[in-house]
């Protein structure tokens, strides 16, 4: 069967868009084929910086004829209905319709519409212009003289030529003719911009890929990646080095070249004084080059050789290219070194920082302290309604000190760390590379001799940044990380800026999840409602505090509702977190009580309850509970009398006596186990109820004839419910 070849050649497509665009093209074209009744055998897409290509195999030359029947109105239907039928079926007169009979319906019209099959060429010629016009580029543009007119063709960058050929292996393929914008589809394309600028014609995919390869274009991106990876490793290996792996960069670089030629450049070893992260980021972000390190890892140290990927086979073997790139890398590293050294020196205008330093308790002899004083003195806004960064840091520091004892951290260290945590925002290095925030703070904190826990906290207080990010374990870091996130949440709740639907511009869900992971993974007991309330009152609500140095423009209403609301936001996030970790999130509601605000406790209850409900005893007890609850609900509805308490004297059957005794014992055990938060014991105590409950339902008739006996037995059922309620509200267990 014939094959279809499509190439859309344009000016340079942004690397990050190529892969998806090629996939979109495949999907849109194959969908159009299938829709038109042209199933295909296989399709594969390709991309380079200058082209999207599509190779579709085994497309039928023609779609099958289709006969459609359309039922019409009865032959004696009003003229209007018949006219409508003719219009809908595309018939010009009623003579073209057939008449059929049906015992129920009588005589009625049927339009038999024959749709002759179409050639694949016609289908493609019709589909492609629409696909090109509606292509889902993230951002597209108009160009050239045609852009005078509204509605002119858009593409990611100017589209230069279109190849579209179709034909079986054994024959010369034909050009599928269509026009879009100023472009006419044909069979001509061009190779590498510099090595093979002449136009050439292509027939089918093999011929196309072959000629492109001769014209210095490696069509397959995976192949380009492998070439780069292989050559880079060889270049590094020859010098006793290894390439620091960077898949994201490899993907990007493979989208910047059609003919990858890998080269090695160098810079002065003096620049290795910089933190390796800075060297890598400078070289990666600005120059899109790979860094190398001594073979075997180098203990975090890099080498002064880097790998660059060029797009040409240079006449001089790449000497000029390597030299030029080295020059740019050196200039960038020299900037970075300047930032690194400047950040370790004094700021020029120290006297202007004294007020801030005094109010924050900073030591202006230390560079990072100066940067924090500057952050405060600049009055940089954090959020218009919440206040400045300086105010925020004060709040975080106060909260970190307050939380410190709860997490087992030294309050003084926590306060100090919180005070320095945001200081690197005003360093030159973070100004240039915002993604290094935290990390640079840690380096600078280390250089001025801060306590190791303070250093760790300065770096890690942003963590965890997502579900897969590491959770800090240093206690001081935990305190500051919690304080940072809680402050953000309380502050945004106070001004009623909460996430809605897919909108969460301040990443508040992430902050809440961060808090949850910090608490659970470090096994922390925190009374959240207290913390939220206190933080709000002491640090955010200046009205409540009277004259305060912390001026925050939050409303002056009592914020109780917002606190409860924030707590329930936490609980919702906890459910999400439990669901994602494979736990039973439906059990959260079951274990919650009016006063639950301890996430760790809630989680432990959920875990124990989940394990119990998975056991044989648990399943049966749940069934017994439900039976009891259903009976009680039905009787309560009927208004049947239920005794206030179980009267032991009215118990006659051995099974009901046994159950009453079992409940008494279980309750004692439950109280003891719950008192010591030993949830495994609590579940074991509950488990002991299973046999007596089963036996009770097996042998004892609740609906006894004697009203007193019945009321007493119902009271016994109430006690089953009460006993289980000590652990969880079983009525909220799903399933």
């Amino acid at each position, binding site marked *: 069967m014939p094959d279809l070849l499509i190439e859309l050649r344009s000016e*340079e497509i942004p690397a990050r868009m190529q892969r998806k665009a090629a996939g979109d093209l495949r999907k849109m074209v194959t969908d159009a084929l299938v829709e038109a009744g042209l199933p295909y055998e296989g399709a594969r897409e390709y991309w380079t910086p200058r082209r999207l290509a599509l190779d579709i195999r085994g497309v039928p030359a023609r779609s099958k004829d289709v006969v459609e029947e359309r039922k019409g109105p009865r032959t004696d239907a009003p003229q209007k209905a018949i006219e409508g039928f003719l219009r809908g079926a595309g018939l010009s007169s009623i003579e073209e319709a057939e008449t059929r009979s049906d015992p129920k319906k009588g005589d009625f019209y049927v339009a038999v519409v024959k749709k002759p099959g179409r050639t694949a060429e016609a289908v493609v010629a019709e589909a492609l212009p629409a696909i090109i016009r509606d292509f889902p580029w993230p951002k597209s*543009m108009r160009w*050239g003289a*045609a*852009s005078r007119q509204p509605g002119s063709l858009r593409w990611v960058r100017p589209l230069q030529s279109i190849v579209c050929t179709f034909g079986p292996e054994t024959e010369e393929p034909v050009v599928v003719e269509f026009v879009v914008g100023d472009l006419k589809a044909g069979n001509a394309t061009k190779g590498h911009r510099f090595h093979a600028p002449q136009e050439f014609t292509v027939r089918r995919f093999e011929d196309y890929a072959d000629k492109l390869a001769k014209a210095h274009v490696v069509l397959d991106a995976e192949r380009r990646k492998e070439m780069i990876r292989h050559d880079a490793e060889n270049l590094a290996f020859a010098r006793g080095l290894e390439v620091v792996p960077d898949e994201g960069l490899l993907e990007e670089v493979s989208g*910047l070249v059609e003919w990858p030629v890998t080269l090695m450049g160098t810079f002065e070893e003096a620049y290795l004084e910089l933190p390796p992260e800075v060297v890598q980021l400078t070289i990666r972000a600005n120059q899109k080059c790979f860094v190398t390190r001594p073979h075997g890892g180098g203990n975090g140290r890099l080498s002064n050789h880097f790998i660059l990927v060029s797009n040409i086979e240079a*006449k001089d073997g790449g000497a000029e290219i390597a030299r030029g790139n080295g020059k740019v890398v050196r200039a960038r590293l020299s900037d970075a070194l300047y930032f690194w050294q400047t950040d370790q020196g004094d700021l020029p205008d120290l006297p202007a920082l004294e007020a801030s330093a005094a109010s924050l308790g900073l030591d202006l002899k230390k560079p990072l302290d100066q940067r924090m004083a500057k952050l405060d003195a600049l009055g940089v806004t954090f959020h218009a309604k919440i206040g400045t960064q300086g105010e925020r840091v004060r709040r975080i520091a106060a909260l970190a000190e307050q939380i410190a004892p709860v997490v087992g951290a030294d309050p003084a260290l926590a306060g100090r760390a919180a005070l320095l945590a945001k200081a690197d925002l005003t360093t030159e290095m973070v100004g240039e590379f915002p993604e290094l925030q935290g990390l640079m703070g840690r380096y600078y904190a280390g250089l001025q001799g801060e306590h190791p826990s303070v250093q760790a906290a300065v770096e890690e207080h942003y963590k965890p940044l997502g579900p897969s990010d590491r959770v800090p374990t240093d206690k001081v870091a935990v305190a500051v990380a919690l304080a940072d996130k809680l402050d953000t949440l309380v502050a945004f709740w106070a001004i009623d800026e909460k996430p809605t639907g897919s909108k969460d511009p301040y990443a508040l869900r992430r902050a809440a999840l961060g808090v949850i992971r910090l608490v659970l993974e470090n096994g922390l007991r925190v009374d959240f409602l207290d913390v939220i309330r206190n933080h709000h009152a002491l640090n955010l609500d200046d009205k409540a505090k009277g004259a305060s140095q912390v001026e925050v423009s939050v409303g002056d209403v009592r914020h109780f509702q917002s606190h409860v609301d924030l707590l329930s936001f936490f609980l919702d996030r906890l459910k999400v977190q439990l669901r994602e970790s494979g736990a039973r999130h439906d059990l959260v509601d079951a274990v919650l009580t009016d006063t639950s605000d301890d996430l760790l406790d809630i989680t432990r209850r959920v875990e124990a309850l989940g394990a119990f409900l998975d056991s044989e005893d648990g399943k049966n007890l749940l069934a017994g509970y439900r039976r009891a609850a259903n009976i009680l609900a039905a009787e309560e509805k009927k208004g049947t009398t239920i005794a206030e308490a179980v009267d032991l004297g009215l118990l006659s059957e051995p099974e009901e006596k046994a159950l009453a005794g079992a409940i008494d014992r279980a309750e004692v055990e439950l109280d003891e186990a719950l008192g010591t938060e030993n949830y495994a014991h609590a579940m074991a105590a509950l488990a002991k109820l299973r046999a007596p409950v089963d036996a009770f339902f097996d042998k004892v008739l609740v609906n006894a004839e004697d009203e007193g006996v019945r009321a007493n037995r119902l009271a016994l059922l109430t006690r089953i419910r009460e006993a289980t309620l000590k652990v969880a509200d079983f009525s909220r267990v799903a399933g």
Partner: protein
Amino acid sequence: MPDLLPQMDPKRSFQGLILTLQRYWADYGCVILQPYDMEVGAGTFHPATTLRALGPKRWNAAYVQPSRRPKDGRYGENPNRLQHYYQFQVILKPNPSNLQELYLGSLAAIGVDPLVHDIRFVEDDWESPTLGAWGLGWECWCDGMEVSQFTYFQQVCGIECAPVAGELTYGLERLAMYVQNVDNVYDLNFNGREGDEKVTYGEVFLQAEQEYSRFNFEFADTAILHRHFDEAEKECAALLAAGAPDEPGALHRCVLPAYDQCIKASHVFNLLDARGVISVTERQSYILRVRSLAKACGEAFLLTDAGGASPQDAAA
């Protein structure tokens, strides 16, 4: 091209580089303009680009534009950063379909061989919030160094470009440092002579860099600057109002002088920014104020002859 004196070789002299580019684009058919006589942050601000990018008329121009970025001042101590530097600007409306080839031809003209040097078009979406302008294009890299910006204007002064113009901006000092192979901008050979006759970039501009850095960061009177900003903003609006068409269909009579005031406001804003007296929140509002001036000027320009309006058509 007729033979040039050896000192005019773009690889030997800064001015040779400029003249070669001018010659190349003159040969293509551009009008070669001289720099606009006002302080601007980039060649794009020249009315030959900002305003002429609007409207339906054909327009091909090239010019050098001294550009001022007060914040980039380094007191002459940084080998790569200047608060005053030259851009070479080319604007072709509508963009010809071979604009990339034309650009590469200009690099060849200054001696950059694309089979020795690695020339690349790397994604760069250009946006000027103050001009209400955006376009798609690339940074053009030569051996990893960004030497030009290449943009297809989609919108200018908040107005859709119809047709689209192609804009090329060459960073002349960078390009010259590259072709002359020097590491410090102040070491560039300006006139291509050697020995006593040689004039370096530093001899021409180092003192200015030092003095303007002091002015930009320390001496500029911020109260005066604030006043200048307000006055320019007021004057721009007043001129646009004064020249507005007096009857429906008539032409606007005073756009270019109004646009000068917009340029002025923009530069004053950059100076205030360098002096560090604009807070983060204020910054946004200043940008918006300049943008609304640019927008008003762009709209008025469409009511002029150069903007493609014709009073006869309107009357008919």
